[in-house]
């Protein structure tokens, strides 16, 4: 059943213009959707997709790479030494002037799994999945601040309004579920920095934007207008029956208008969503051992919601650690990162375990990371017990797991002081191209026509990182 439909105006920007362009380029029009199609009907991608969905665990604020997944023995050896001026120049201008001495990681690293992946003591549970992790240590950002980093990571451009990755996926694939939105953003305690711009559909139709849910709320408040509690379910059903009776008569007198039928369907969908949405967010349905696996904490609930949404056909699920930018540890990093990692280590490991035992990990691409990393130097803080690390975009770490990526490997590297990428630099367009590839898209061919040109998530950049993918 397809409950969604649109007028031709809805996707007008993909109509005549792109056909003209396509014929100019001697290619079939393949902007993703024909103008007459409903915007959320299911679509086939360019080639068979390797995964069905993405769960993006967003450690917003920018987690430190050398304290987690990128061990730097030389940095540890030089701990407390001043940074030579020649090297200091490599830092971004905003960080250069406030960079203090080198700051080795106070955390111990161990090797895990058959692959011997080095992971710090901050993530003992995640580390047990070492053989499933593909750690990319060579991420290259563009602007060393949160909003540009978030927008670049989510939407492919650091400053201009562009549709987010989730919007591109909905545009390209449609919605699998007919009871739930296809792009859900879970964030406890308010909104992350840059707010809804992180999941905007920008110039695409609004149906492609993410649905934000504050997972600090629980139960029925979790989705706007999801339910009301002053009417008996039976009364509401009877009320809806009257509306639908009127709608059926109205539509019957106005044949040939698909929108009227669609609204009738959508109203039924909404009625079901009252219970489906409530159901998806009702963790009491989970057995005790599963709830314990994740832990009955904010992060634990967040990850468990993610799995429940994944099971129900949601394409793109983003889990922010929390409102604002919690991983932004300019000060007291040792205390703060220990707390943040402790909050998320068990739930993330639980998610990987749970997906695996349900046979879902292989069809789910799990991504862990932030919008940047942190400096190998101390940010100048007067009190030595409260030192932190500054923003760093030249070589930070993200990892992927599941869905067709090679586990137990690392890709790319930074120099021994973690100042810059030394091999296999990965830009955000490369990263996006790779994610799109796993979902069946050639990132160069997934285009949306707006304002006179074809836009891409990767603009004119991006290459798929074949090395990290299972062939």
């Amino acid at each position, binding site marked *: 059943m397809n*409950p*969604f439909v*649109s*007028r*031709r*105006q*809805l996707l*007008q*920007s993909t*109509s*005549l*213009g792109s056909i003209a*362009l396509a014929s*100019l*380029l*001697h*290619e*079939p029009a*393949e902007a993703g959707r024909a103008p007459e199609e409903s*915007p959320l009907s299911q679509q*086939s991608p*360019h080639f068979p997709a390797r995964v069905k969905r993405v769960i993006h665990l967003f450690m917003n604020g920018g987690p430190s790479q050398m304290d987690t997944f990128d061990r730097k023995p030389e940095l540890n050896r030089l701990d407390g030494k001043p940074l030579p001026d020649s090297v200091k120049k490599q830092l971004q201008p905003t960080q250069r002037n406030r960079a203090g001495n080198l700051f080795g990681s106070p955390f111990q690293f161990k090797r895990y799994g058959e692959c011997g992946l080095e992971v710090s003591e901050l993530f003992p549970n995640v580390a047990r999945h070492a053989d499933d992790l593909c750690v990319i240590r060579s991420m290259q950002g563009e602007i060393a601040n949160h909003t540009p980093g978030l927008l670049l990571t989510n939407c492919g451009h650091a*400053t201009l309004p562009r549709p987010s990755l989730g919007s591109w996926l909905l545009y390209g694939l449609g919605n699998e579920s007919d009871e739930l*939105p296809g792009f859900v953003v879970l964030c406890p305690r308010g909104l992350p920095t840059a707010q809804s*711009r992180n999941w905007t559909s920008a110039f695409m*139709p*609004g*149906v492609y*934007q993410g649905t934000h849910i504050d997972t600090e709320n629980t139960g029925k408040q979790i989705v*706007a*207008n*999801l339910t*009301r509690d*002053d*009417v008996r379910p039976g*009364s509401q059903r009877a*009320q*809806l029956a*009257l*509306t639908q*009776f*009127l*709608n059926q008569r*109205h*539509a019957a007198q*106005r044949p*040939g*208008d698909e*929108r*009227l039928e669609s*609204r009738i369907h*959508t*109203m039924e969908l*909404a*009625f079901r969503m009252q219970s489906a949405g409530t159901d998806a967010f009702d963790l009491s349905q989970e057995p005790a051992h599963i709830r314990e696996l994740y832990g009955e904490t904010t992060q634990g609930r967040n990850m468990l919601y993610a799995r429940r949404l994944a099971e129900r056909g949601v394409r793109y699920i983003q889990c922010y650690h929390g409102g604002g*930018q919690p991983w932004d540890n300019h000060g007291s990093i040792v205390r703060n990162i220990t707390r943040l990692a402790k909050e998320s280590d068990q739930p993330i490991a639980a998610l990987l375990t749970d997906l695996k035992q349900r046979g879902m990990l292989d069809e789910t691409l799990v991504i862990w990371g932030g919008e940047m990393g942190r400096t190998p130097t101390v940010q100048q803080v007067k009190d030595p017990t409260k030192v932190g690390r500054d923003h760093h975009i030249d070589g930070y770490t993200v990892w992927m797991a599941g869905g067709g990526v090679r586990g137990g490997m690392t890709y790319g590297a930074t120099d021994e002081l973690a100042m810059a990428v030394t091999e296999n630099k990965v830009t955000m367009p490369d990263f996006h191209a790779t994610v799109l590839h796993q979902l069946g898209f050639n990132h*160069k061919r997934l285009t949306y026509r707006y*304002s*006179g*040109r074809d836009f891409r998530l990767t603009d004119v950049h991006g290459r798929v990182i074949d090395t990290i993918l299972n062939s």
Partner: protein
Amino acid sequence: MQACFHRHALLRLTVLAGLVAGALMPCGTGSLRAEERRTNDSADELRFFEQKIRPLLVEHCYECHSEEAGEQQGGLLLDRRSGWIEGGDTSKAVVPGEPDTSLLITAIRYDNDDLQMPPEQRLDDEAIALFEQWVRRGAHGPADDMGETEFSRLGDQDYLFDQAENHWAFQPVRPVEIPSPGAIDTEHERWGENAIDCFVLDALSSAQLTPSPPADATTLTRRLYCDLTGLPPTFEQVTAFQEATEVDPDGATPRLIDQLIESPEFGQHLGRLWLDVVRYADTDNNYRPDTRTPHYHPFAFSYRDYVVRSLNNDKPYDQFLKEQIAADLMGFAGDAPEMAALGFYASGPYSSRAQNEALDDWIDVTTRGLMGITVACARCHDHKFEPVPTADYYSLRGVFAAVARVNPLDETKQPVLTSYQPTPSQSADFAKKRSAIEAKINGAAGKKAKNNNRPIAQKIRETELAELLTFHPGAPERAMVVAERKQPPESFVFVRGDAAARGEAVPRRFLKILDPQQHAFPETNSGRLQLADKIASPDNPLTARVFVNRVWGYLIGSHLVDTPSDFGLQGAPPTHPRLLDWLADDFIRHDWSVKHLVRRIVMSQTYQQSSRTRETAAVVDPENRWLWRANRKHLTIEVIRDSMLLVAGRLDRRIGGHPERLWGDDYTRRRAIYGFINRFNLDPTLRAFDFPAPVQTQPARGESIVAQQALFLMNSPLVIDQAAAIASADALTRIEGDEAKVEFLFRTILGREPVAAEVSRTLKLVEFQQRFQKPDRPQTRFIVSPWPLVAQALLMSNEFQYVD
């Protein structure tokens, strides 16, 4: 979708063909005269190219630099000689004979960190040596050189200007002869009376279609009320119009149209069309992370009220535009109400505090919003598809870079306007609250926030004071103005859009395609007044056409040009080109009167025909491109909301003033155009109903159908409240008998009498609910009365949300 699979296969075919051609080439016959020896030499070169160079290009370069692949990244094509000789955006790729000065060689050698091709991996030394040899030998091209093609001409401005010469939208607006209606059958005799209908009928006849009969009086009343005022008619108004048409069939409709166009609701409704175009909002698109509040634009509402007032006063559209672009340069007093027009620029998104982005928005809203030309695409290079050289972008950037932005919270630079008058008690309350905040600010003098060292006083100004100025009805209205900079800065082209890479200096002037003489604007100021004159001119071929098309789309439900903000070479062609031109010309001749334009359109039989489908016509023209029927239109979220308040008897019709909350516990009962629009975090209900994100100029709204909309109707407090208000109104409770109550609700909410089947079906819900009303039932939290549920069932119906 299959192109990506076929691409390499196609390439291989091309290569094979090339190789075969190359191999056959030298097998000519004849004596070895000098001419032929040369040919033979060049045949050697071709063979060298096809055998040694082409395979390397195919393997390493064509994915991004060939027509077959549909890619010319960096503007560079390597599948023809002209491609590498003329080069891409950077410059020539190859200088024949000189490998060391050829960029292509530099790139493949990986000599330059910023230019390394192919990006994946350096070629092996042998391949590089071959390329060097090829360049040294003269960089000869393929045997079958493609030369210039449509594809290689992308971005070729000479070619695009040639194309533009014949493009409809760039032709002057001239009087158009009205087609003679020809033989009109008796059913459609009125179609010969109105020029619009003659054009439409002419197009219909060409498509072998006929128009629909006129809509009945009930349908037409609802259509006119909704389209002209954004509010549905009451049952009494419908009945009155029905009676009037019986008495005076010819006069009743024009009278109603005049009455509605002259009502204050006209500007409140049509104003929303304009606010979409100008990305209106009451905040900036950023927020303050430490206080978690938006950057308020407390005086943006003066611009919104200016728009509504101008439409209601029928300010000529050319004047309307000029004031928005340059009111401060037109000789108005500093506190004249016209100064509010400058909110067109001043209330826009200031982006991430980055001047380049803010200027880009101003260029975009001016060119795409007012003229339907996508100049903003020429920021990094000449436009690929339109006659817009990058110099045009930077000419306009020069205009706007000479404009000083005023801090939206700086009250000293934004004049108080008298067009809004708070009551004395509102003013007094405001003064009291303000002085309390001022006291707090003074008390915080010298203190700084612990976390980020910002002055506490500053934070209070940005939050509490800004909120008070934005929302308090006693706060004065100020014009959100811009000003001239003392010294207009010189403007340079930024090469590839990079502010650090200055190219040639460009004077402030108008777009080349519209002003081929390229007269420079005065050197002493921004030139906004000259820009305004160029845009709001009868000689500008785009301005009138673009606006007429927007209004047409708003009233008819489909546009004559389906890309309302793109009238360029890539835009959709008009379905009725002569009608569009006639409307534009008529609009200009009637002193750019928007009311005249609206009246013209709604007086037409085209507008007034029935929206019912007809099977035979639907087969020929399912999309109704040729307007053989009226379009059934979905009401916008604003109209739905206002209609609910109206039928509940709770709509506050006051005009103008500070923004108020649309939803939540303290939702306003005023019209939705007065709702607070938060640009940085757009309200989810608005978003769910296709309200465009006010971050850039918007061509038109779509109509999506998503579950969140239905959830809003089913469960939102606003809808539930209005249903409850209708159910508890005296008018309903006074009525005896369930059937009469049902009839009353149909009349009140849907503006019509129910038919018997509807009454009996509704009574079923009443009966279902009445079982809970028995006195012996225990008290619960559930609604027992059936009437709020019935009222809401009608509010939720499609009939309530659509206009036939």
